[in-house]
């Protein structure tokens, strides 16, 4: 389900941390295109700049130079409120930890995003949260708090929180790192379904090569540079399962 033009286009992105002798280059002239409905995996060794690239592409971390074009605008020439608005309307995030509010039920974790971020009424937010939890196989766990859920269930709630607003982009940072493969596979299937069925552009940072066969494309980052041509298709590099 790939659209013709890129939904996100990054050009010559560079980002470093520190200064002087302690300066570390995290990204060096990285360029890539992401398409609507595409499930892209970003791989690379620790410290290669994967998370930094994810943060720059999603409007969370300012690059030193380069442009991120999304929806016809340069993300990093916009104001902070405009970037916040971009993330609110178009982005979902899944982080390494589940980061769920301990006091809220699975349903409330999802409702918060709709009610606080989109002004959705309580009743409508509840309906949509229940619908999403049902899709995630958590229909019977809607009233449970994080302490009553397994790791896989918590990560599914976190995915629900990222996808409930039906974002154009979903950025996931090591979403399966804390899970065994059986649960991890479920998570990846859910993300792939989001890309295929909803047209969401999914960018996943991960180490686990078992994810590769599920993706449309793999980007390899090494020492802050994209090692593989970003236009290379997963099918050219990896066998389809």
């Amino acid at each position, binding site marked *: 389900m790939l659209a013709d033009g890129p939904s996100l286009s990054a050009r010559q992105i560079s980002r470093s941390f520190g200064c002087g002798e302690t300066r570390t280059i995290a990204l060096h002239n990285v360029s890539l295109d992401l398409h609507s409905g595409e499930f892209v995996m970003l791989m690379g060794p620790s410290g290669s700049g994967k998370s930094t690239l994810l943060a720059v592409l999603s409007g969370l971390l300012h690059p030193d130079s380069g442009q991120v074009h999304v929806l016809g605008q340069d993300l990093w020439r916009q104001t902070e409120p405009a970037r916040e608005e971009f993330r609110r309307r178009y982005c979902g995030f899944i*982080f390494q930890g589940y980061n769920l509010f301990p006091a*809220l039920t699975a349903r409330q974790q999802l409702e918060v995003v709709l009610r606080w971020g989109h002004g959705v009424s309580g009743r409508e937010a509840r309906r949509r949260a229940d619908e999403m939890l049902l899709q995630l196989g958590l229909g019977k766990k809607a009233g449970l708090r994080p302490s009553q859920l397994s790791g896989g269930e918590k990560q599914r709630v976190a995915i629900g929180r990222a996808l409930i607003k039906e974002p154009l982009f979903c950025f996931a940072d090591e979403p399966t790192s804390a899970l065994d493969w059986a649960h991890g596979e479920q998570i990846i299937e859910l993300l792939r379904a989001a890309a295929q069925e909803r047209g969401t552009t999914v960018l996943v940072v991960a180490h686990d090569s078992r994810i590769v066969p599920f993706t449309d494309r793999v980007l390899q980052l090494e020492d802050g540079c994209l090692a593989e041509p970003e236009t290379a298709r997963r099918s050219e590099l990896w066998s389809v399962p």
Partner: protein
Amino acid sequence: MSYSLVTLWHERQRYVPGVLAVGFSALLIALQCGLLLGLFSITSIPVDHTRADIWVGAPQVLSVDLGRPVPESYLSRLAAQPEVEAPEIYLQGFAYWSKPNGATELCIVIGARLDDQALGCVDELTPELRSLITEPGAIILDESELGRLGMKGIGDVAEISGQRVRLVGLVHGLKSLAGPYVFCSLGTARPLLHLLPDQTTYLLARCRNPAEAPAVVERLRAYPNMSAFTSEDFSFRTRMHWLTMTKAGIALGCAAALGLLVGAVVTSQTLYAATAASLREFAVLQALGIPRWRMALTVLAQAFWVGLTGIALAVPVVFGLRELADHVGAKILLPGWLLAIAIGVTMTMALVSGLAALRSLRLVEPATLLR
């Protein structure tokens, strides 16, 4: 139920110090101010428990217990006012009470007319009691002062200013701050206070229409060598004198302010710690584009609920302690306006604490979630 309330309940152990601090502050403010009001309401009993609309005394008199002799002839100045009904004299002053064991105690002798229309006779003196003190040397005391004055009960005798007095009756609720009140007739009071036959401490008057009292007082103030007040003004002046000229008001006020400060610091730190503990969750919401003000509103809502819970816990305790204080003879006045102020100040303190706790939200940085 709001998410902030859900969080508050689920993590109630975390919020307990804040709730208790708010409750403690509300309790301290209400009790200290109530105690202050109760304490100083005692000082104006002679004004508040009598029927006069106008009080005239020596120039610059600061409070009712500090009256000085003025000529009785000033009665004509009051009588000359068309709105005034039969003015009368009123004697009051400090005197030494000699206990049966030889020790002395300062007391306040109050001598007033005793007929049914008397303006200076306190309401608590029933016709029977008034009849009893028409006898020379007969006095009435508040029951709670007996021990202080070394008396056992009705019929006991003692000496005031070297003159023999006999206790003929008791009243309740007229405890004094400066010295026990000794109620008696004008005839008994005059020698006890060493007042000359043409001297009085105050001149009292009642207006046909009480609303005219302020205008009459204004006219009376034109006369030299005396001061005039409406009873409301004199009562307030007396209480304010005690409040400002003694250290008691300042001490109680400081204690209440200290309670407020402690409450603010503990509440603020509780909310700060609770918010800081959820920084990663807030960071996720911020990454999802939920504005910071929406999260700030949640912290403020938590501050509101902490404040409300603390106050709800404090109110019954305040009333319980008032009853307890009543039993041990301390007067705590808790008028509605005082409770409203205490609740308002405490709630404001809780919300300000919430505002102070918002600084923890500045630490929210969604990029840190990407490691």
